[in-house]
C-alpha cells in the first residue's frame, strides 16, 4: 500500500499535461510524470519515492503511437513493452524489451518508463542508442525533437518539467541483422548481469551494454575494438574490455569477476552471431 496521499491527474493532450505541471509547480508541489506506474507503485509502497501529485501520461494519444510515419518508426512513450514486441516493427527492440521483468509486468511497463527508470538497467534504450533515434520532448518551452544522444548520457537528462512524448527510429535501422543477449544470475526473470543489443550497419558492429556498469552505454572505443579486422576474436574482446567507461559493477546479481567472465562470453557470442549473419 502507498502510505501517502497524492493528487492524480490524467491529461488528454500534451498541452494539458504541460499546463497541469505548471499549475502544480506554482503550488510548490512535488510532481511526477509517469506512464506505466510500476515503479511509482513499487517504490512508493517501500517509501523510496514520494510525490504530492502525479501526472499520468497514458491519457495522451500522442504517447500511444506505434507506427511508421514517413522515414521513421514512431514509438509513443506510453506504449507497453509487450505491444512493442508483438508489433514486430522493430525486432531488435522487441527482443530486448521482451527480456525485461515478466510478461504480466510488461503489460504495464512502458518504453518511456523503462528508459526513464530509476534502475540502472534501462535496457529499452540499448537498441535506440544504436539507431540514431530521436526523441520528442514536451515542456514549458513547447515541443522539440532532439537526437537521443543529446539528452541521453548514462540516463535521460531532462528536467522534471519535461516529459517524453515519443521516440523516432529511422526506418533504415529497423531490420538490420542484430543480436540481443541477456545473462542473468539464474532465472530469466531477473536483472541483467550483462545485457547486450548489437547490430551490423554498413558492415560495422554497433553494440550497447547494460548491467555491466552503473548505467547503459554505447561506446565508440568498444565498437572500434570489435570492428578491428587486424585482431582475432579474443583480441577484439580483450581490447574492448579495456575500453569500458568505468569499472565493472559488483552486486547481488554477480561478482565483478563473474560479470567480466560473462561479458567476455557475451561479446564472443555476439561477434559470432553477427558474423554468421554476414555470410
Amino acid at each position, binding site marked *: *500500500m*502507498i*502510505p*501517502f496521499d497524492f493528487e492524480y491527474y490524467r491529461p488528454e493532450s500534451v498541452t494539458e499535461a504541460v499546463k497541469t505541471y505548471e499549475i502544480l509547480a506554482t503550488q510548490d508541489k512535488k510532481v511526477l510524470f509517469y506512464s506505466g506506474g510500476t515503479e511509482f507503485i*513499487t517504490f512508493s*509502497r*517501500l*517509501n523510496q519515492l514520494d510525490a504530492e501529485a502525479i501526472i499520468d501520461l497514458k491519457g495522451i494519444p500522442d504517447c500511444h503511437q506505434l507506427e511508421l510515419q514517413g522515414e521513421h518508426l514512431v514509438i509513443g512513450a506510453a506504449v507497453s513493452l509487450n505491444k512493442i514486441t508483438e508489433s514486430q516493427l522493430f525486432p531488435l527492440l522487441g527482443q530486448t524489451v521482451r527480456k525485461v521483468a*515478466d510478461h504480466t509486468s510488461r503489460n504495464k511497463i512502458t518504453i518511456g518508463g523503462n528508459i526513464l527508470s530509476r534502475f540502472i538497467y534501462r535496457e529499452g534504450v540499448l537498441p535506440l542508442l544504436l539507431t540514431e533515434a530521436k526523441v520528442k520532448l514536451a515542456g514549458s518551452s513547447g515541443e522539440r525533437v532532439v537526437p537521443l544522444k543529446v539528452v541521453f548520457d548514462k540516463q535521460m537528462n531532462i528536467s522534471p518539467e519535461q516529459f517524453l512524448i515519443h521516440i523516432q527510429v529511422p526506418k533504415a535501422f529497423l531490420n538490420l541483422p542484430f543480436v540481443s543477449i541477456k*545473462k542473468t*544470475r*539464474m*532465472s*530469466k*526473470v*531477473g536483472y541483467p548481469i550483462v545485457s547486450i543489443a548489437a547490430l551490423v550497419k554498413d558492415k560495422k558492429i554497433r553494440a550497447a551494454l547494460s548491467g555491466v556498469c552503473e548505467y547503459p552505454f554505447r561506446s565508440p572505443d568498444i565498437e572500434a575494438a570489435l570492428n578491428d579486422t587486424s585482431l582475432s576474436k579474443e583480441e577484439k574482446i580483450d581490447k574492448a574490455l579495456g575500453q569500458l567507461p568505468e569499472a565493472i559493477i559488483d552486486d*547481488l546479481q*554477480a*561478482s565483478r569477476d*563473474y560479470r567480466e*567472465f*560473462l561479458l567476455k*562470453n557475451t561479446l564472443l557470442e555476439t561477434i559470432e552471431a553477427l558474423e554468421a549473419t554476414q555470410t
Partner: protein
Amino acid sequence: MLENPWLSIGKPEQRIDAVEKAAGTVRYTADYSVPGLLHAKLATSTQAHAKIKAIDVSEAWKVPGVRAIVTGKMFPYHIGPILADRPPLAFEKVRYYGEPLAIVVADQEYMAKQAAQLIHVKYEPLPVVNSAREAFQTDAPLIHENSGKYMKIISNVYPVQGTNIGSHIKIRKGDFITAWENCDIKIKQTFSFNLSDHAALEPRCTRVEINPAGKVVVHSTTQSPFTIKKVLNQFFNIDVGNIIVHVPLIGGAFGGKGTVQLEPLAYLASKAVGGRMVKLEFTREEDLITAPGHIGLEATIALGANKAGKLMAGQYTYLIDSGAYTDQAAGITRAMALDCTGPYDIPNVWCDSYCMYTNHPYATSFRGYAHPELTFAVERTMDKLAHKLKLDPVELRKINAIKPGNSSPTSAVLNANNLGDVEKCIDQAKKLIDWDQGERLETADGKVKAKGISTFWKTSTTATNAQSGAVLKFEADGSVNLNCAAIELGQGSKTILAQMVAERLKMDIKKVHVTMEVNTQSDPHQWRTVASSTTFLAGRAVMNACDDAISQLKRTASIALQCSMEDLEVGGGRVYLKPSPEYGVKIQDIALGYKYPNGHAVEGQVVGHGRYIQRHLTPMDKDTGFGKPGPWWSVGTQAVEVEWDPADCSYKILKAVTVLDGGKIINPMTATQQMRGGMYLGLSFASQEGFIFDQNGTVLNPQLRTYQMVRFGEQPAEYIVDFIETPAADGPFGARGIGEYGVIGMAGALANALSTAAQVELNHLPLLPELIWKTRKESQA
C-alpha cells in the same frame, strides 16, 4: 459380497476445492473486512544485534487515526513453541534485522503505516553473529545471555547457558570410535547454505478481537489453530475455552504457517484498543524476513565403509542456523539427528546436531523438517564415497539401503509396515531417469547432460500424543458433512478425507461435503496440519467416525427393517440386508431418525465421531538419542537430469523424477501433484533461493525483486512421478504420509547432477551458475 461401485480410494478424484479456486472466488483471511476493523502495522528493527536505548513514539502519535502504540515493554516476556526464548516485541535488545519492535493500531492501514515509519529507535550496536559457524566459536558474542533460564515447552530441548547453542541433540548408536578405526575407506565433507524463505503465495495475515464477554476470537492463516489456543493460554493467561480460532483456506504454507507469530501481536494490539478487532497483514517484505523462514545449515559428514562399499560408521555434525530464536528450529535440530543417516543401514552412528543462535531472521519448520537439508549433505557424501570406491552411485545406495529388521539411528526397530521399500524406489528411479544410458554425456553442441540421484526417508516427528478427530453429520437427503480440523493449504487433504468417507460408507463422493474452513469451537481437536501427518492421523479419525456412523445407521435400520444389526450392510446410500440386498432402507429415510408409519419416531440423527492418537511414540534419550520418534518412515528416490553449458556454467533442468513409497496412494492425481510441487520447491531452494547478508547481518534481498525463485516456465521440462505402494498395516487403507516428500531429495539430486556435469564438488547452495564457475576456477587453480 457385492462389488463396491463407489470405490474412491486409488481413484484420481477431482479436488473438492478445485472449482472455487479456479474461479478465483475463494476468500482468504486478508480478504475479509468488517465495520470498525482497525489496522495494525509493525515498526521493525533496522539492526541485526543492538541494545534498544530508547523508542520514541511521540511523532507517530501525531498521525491522525492512531489508536494505540504497543512496544515490547508492555509485554516483556518470552514465548516459543519448544523453548520460550522470543519476545513477541523486542525489549532490551534486538536480535535480527526486521524484528518487530512496536505495533501501531490505527483506523486505516495507511495511517498505521505512516505512524510506524515515525517511530524512532535509538540503538547501541552489538557485535553481530553472522553464521552458525561464527556462533559456535567459544568467544562468539552471546545473543541470549540467559538461555539456560528459558522455559522449556516440550522435552528434548537443551540450551547451553553461556553459549549460542539453543539446543544440542546427540545420537550415540553402536561403537562409532572402534568401527571408524576399522573402516577401509573414509571420507569427510562439509556442506552449507544460508537461510531462505517459504515464500508462500499468500502472505501471513491475522485478525484478533477480544469480545466484551472475554472471548478471544482469532481469524488466521495458520496450520496450527489449536497451537494458537495453547500459546494464548500459556503465555497470555486466557482460558483455552475462551479462545476461538477460525481458519479459512490457506494460500500455501510449506511449514511457514505452522508456528505462531502474528496472533500474539494482534492480540496485544486488540487489547490496547479495548478488544476491538485488529487486522495485522504482513507485506511480502515482512513475510520474507520479519516472519520466520527456512533454516541455514553447515553440515560435516564423515562416512566409513569396507572395501565392498558397506557403510560401517557415520559421523554427522549439524550446525543449524536457527537465526535469533529457536522456534521450530529446535525441533528440526532433533529431527536432523534422528534421521541423520538417510535411508541407510549404518550400525555405528555418532551425531551432534546443534541449534545455533545467530543474528539472522529466525527459522521455523520448512516442508521436510530437516530432511531436505540433511539429505543434501548425506547424498552428496554418498556420491563422493561412490567415486572413491569406484562404485556406481546407484549401486552404493542399494548395498546400503535400509531394510525391515534394521534399526534407525535412534534404535527404533524397522519392519515391513513402518518402512517403505528403499531398494524398489532406487530401481524404479534408476529406470525412469535412464541411468544406464550414462551419467554424463557431452552433446554435439558442446553442452553436457548429466544425471544425479538422491535417496531419502523421513519419519514424522509429531508430539507423542498428536491426534485428530472427525465428526460426520448427516443431512436429510442422506448426504454427509465431514468436520475435521485438518487445514486445507493446497495439499488436498480435504479431498483425501472425503475419499475415505466415500469409500468407507460406500457412497458417491459427491454426497460427501467437507467443511473447508476450520473453527476450533465446533471442530474436534487436531494437533496441527504439519509433518505429512494428516492422511494418517485425520484419516484414521475419519475411518473411526465412519465406523461409528455405520453402526448408528445399522441400528436405526435394524429397527426399520425389523432385523438384527449384524445382518445389515451400508452402501449405495442405503442400509440393506446382506443376504437380500434388494431389501433395505435409504439413508435419507433414517439419517434424522426413523419415523414409523404411525408417526412415532426413534433414534434421531446420525452423528458419527471418530478419533485417533499416536501410539507408542517416545521422546529421545538425552545422551544417546534412543527412542521411537515417529510412526513410520516413507522413503523415496529422486533423480534429476540437467543440461549444463560449460561456456557460461548456466544450466537447465531437463527432467526431475520422484519414486516414492508412501504406502497406499489414496489419490494418484493429487499425490502426483504433491510430488511435482515438492520437486519445484526443492529445485527452487537448491538452485537459487537464499538470503544474502552483509557484514552487519542486514538482509540485502528482502523482497522478491532480489530474492529470486524459479519462475513459471522454468520448471523442469519433464516431471516424472511414480509410486511404490508397500502398504502400512496401520495406515488408513494402508497409506503413510507423503505431503513433504517431493522436496526432500531435490537439492541432493541437483547438486549431484551438476557436480557430475561440471566435474567439481558442489557442496554449497544455492547452485548458481556463478558458484559452479567459481568452484571450477578454484579447482583448476
